[in-house]
């Protein structure tokens, strides 16, 4: 199956626009693509007429150009006819937004779509979904543009069974400065499922990290998915809902009782090197860290800060996640101390965590960070910065980033996410260093790098 027409369409048809109700989902989709995206959008309604001065086509076959993507937002019972017309007209693929299929018991209607599409090798997303959000290319979400929070274009793709979860995470991506390559809401995943998108995204040059929100897999589907994920050279992150056991099934053996559905899910993912996010904070932190670094670490953490309390909290966080914070040798500490400014030379504590104190200046952070790049016992550095300290400037982010890029070691920063520190944060983020909004999230970022390998 070729997904190019779905995710990189040059032309699209929005089927089911209303001539009376401008708030109709199809109208919203048509309007936003027509006005805001490079894709050429055509509106379709059997009654014809015009919408916002544009022709409404009675049939897909009347559209004068070859249509790449059809967005079907008509009532469910019309979907089979529409799909067959799409296939007959040589459309490249479809997103079936409409609900009213398997989720309400109309498996028959859904099966009709699937068997038609399979026969014609015609890819379709959905039904019962938001469809596709390809930054700067196309957006099939029926959410008015002014209501959406759009993350910047980037290298993380999200595939979600739930449209709501996808939109919510796009908002959080924006907040945290994580860039999105593609967002797909697969809804009932009647034809295109997680594994199909995994295989597509594995080859997509714009995607470096692939994240999934999964409610469940069909019989045997989990097996195929994790085997494909294990082969995929890009980090794969999964967040699962429905972890609590459903009902009390009588179990006849210890194994059946000890190997509950979620326990199997979680441990098999870890076995295959798929990074499971336990909650939303983990998902966001993992996406951000892995979008910057795709090489696993062992998890030997160096911590640099200007506050003893931050260092101690980070050590606790590392310990809770099984990350090591190795002590530095006296000799290493002496080398670091030599380069510190006079005002802190005597008071900085350098054992790891390294507390440069509130009197440290940019140069102290830079020289210390540089030393840590040369110490093999450390494979990742957490830089916990408190920008209200008088010696720290907004340039520090960009300067530290360039040192770590050259050294090829992972650097993770913590900077409080408030507007006045934005330049410091962007100094890191725009140079490929993840910045967390809390100490806990910084630790989770390091955890992600350790987890993206088979356990």
């Amino acid at each position, binding site marked *: 199956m070729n997904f190019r027409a779905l995710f990189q369409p040059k032309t699209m048809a929005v089927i089911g626009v209303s001539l009376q109700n401008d708030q109709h989902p199809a109208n919203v989709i048509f309007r936003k693509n027509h006005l805001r995206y490079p894709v050429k959008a055509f509106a379709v309604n059997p009654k014809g007429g015009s919408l916002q001065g544009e022709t409404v086509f009675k049939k897909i076959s009347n559209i004068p150009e070859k249509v790449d993507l059809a967005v079907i937002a008509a009532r469910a019972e019309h979907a089979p006819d529409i799909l067959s017309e799409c296939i007959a007209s040589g459309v490249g693929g479809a997103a079936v937004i409409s609900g009213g299929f398997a989720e309400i018991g109309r498996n028959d209607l859904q099966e009709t779509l699937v068997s038609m599409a399979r026969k014609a090798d015609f890819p379709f997303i959905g039904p019962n979904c938001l469809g596709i959000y390809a930054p700067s290319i196309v957006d099939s979400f029926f959410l008015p543009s002014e209501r959406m929070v759009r993350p910047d274009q980037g290298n993380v793709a999200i595939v979600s069974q739930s449209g709501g979860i996808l939109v919510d995470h796009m908002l959080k991506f924006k907040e945290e400065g994580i860039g999105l390559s593609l967002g797909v809401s697969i809804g009932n995943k009647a034809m295109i499922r997680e594994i199909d998108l995994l295989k597509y995204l594995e080859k997509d040059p714009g995607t470096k990290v692939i994240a999934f929100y999964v409610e*469940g*897999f*069909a*019989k*045997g*589907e*989990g*097996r195929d998915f*994790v085997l494909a994920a294990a082969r995929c050279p890009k980090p794969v992150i999964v967040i699962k809902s429905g972890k609590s056991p459903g009902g009390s099934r009588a179990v*006849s*053996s*210890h*194994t*059946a*009782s*000890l*190997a509950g*559905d979620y*326990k*199997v*899910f979680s*441990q*098999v993912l870890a*076995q*295959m090197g798929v990074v499971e996010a336990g909650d939303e904070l983990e998902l966001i932190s993992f996406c951000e860290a892995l979008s910057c670094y795709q090489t696993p670490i062992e998890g030997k953490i160096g911590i640099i800060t200007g506050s003893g309390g931050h260092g101690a909290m980070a050590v606790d966080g590392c310990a809770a996640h099984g990350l090591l914070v190795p002590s530095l040798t006296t000799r290493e500490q002496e080398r670091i101390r030599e380069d510190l400014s006079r005002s802190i030379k005597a008071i900085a504590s350098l054992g790891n965590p390294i507390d440069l104190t509130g009197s440290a200046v940019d140069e102290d952070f830079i020289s210390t960070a540089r030393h840590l790049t040369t110490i093999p016992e450390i494979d990742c550095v957490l830089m916990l910065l408190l920008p209200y300290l008088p010696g720290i400037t907004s340039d520090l982010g960009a300067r530290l980033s360039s040192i770590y890029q050259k050294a090829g070691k992972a650097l993770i920063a913590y900077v409080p996410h408030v507007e006045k520190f934005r330049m410091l944060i962007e100094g890191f983020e725009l140079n490929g260093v993840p910045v967390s909004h809390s100490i806990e999230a910084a630790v989770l970022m390091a955890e992600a790098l350790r987890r993206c390998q*088979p*356990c």
Partner: protein
Amino acid sequence: MLKKEIATVLDTSKSNGWVLEPDAKSILRSYGIAVPRFTWAANPEEALQFVRERGFPVVAKVVSPKILHKSDVGGVVTGIDNDEWLNDTFQAFSQMEGFAGMLVEEMVSGMELMIGAKMDEQFGPVILFGMGGTEVEIYKDTVLRMAPLKEQDVPSMIKNLKAHRLLEGYRGSKPVNREALTRALLSFSDLVMDIHEFIESIDLNPVLCSPEQCMVADARIMLIGR
């Protein structure tokens, strides 16, 4: 045992829903998984014949398609060390529902581990490994892996147990035989991959591991469509 013979055992056990322990142990043995020497005695003479060849002490277990949880009904007697006790045990078992003979086997000792398998709806056959014994569901110190296992899975399975230090030699005790344990897990994985269409779950519990060997002391193979 040949594949065909295993298929026959599984097929004849189907109506019962699970495989009788002597049959289960024969299947395991045919995959190179160590089990204690045993006999399936149809009468007291056969039981006595076994101890004459192998010696005391022995364990006796009731064999009955009606009795899945043998110890719950007094169907397991350990440490039998004379003819009279062995004979009395046989007589007592013969009164139990569905009596189909007595399993007599040599006593083995070691750390109680557990190896299991389950057919998972989403992931197919999975292997469970952990601390065994009757308290498995209290401590729940187990790890799961999707089958088939690879040799390099075994060290991480052991490492991921909370009690892994016990297996590696703790406070002067010798470590369990890592090679025998690895072989048992990998052979079990082979068995599971061969018969997974027929099974719902398997418990090998306890698997008794010592510095010398790993032996499956009890085996329960639950079949699908029970």
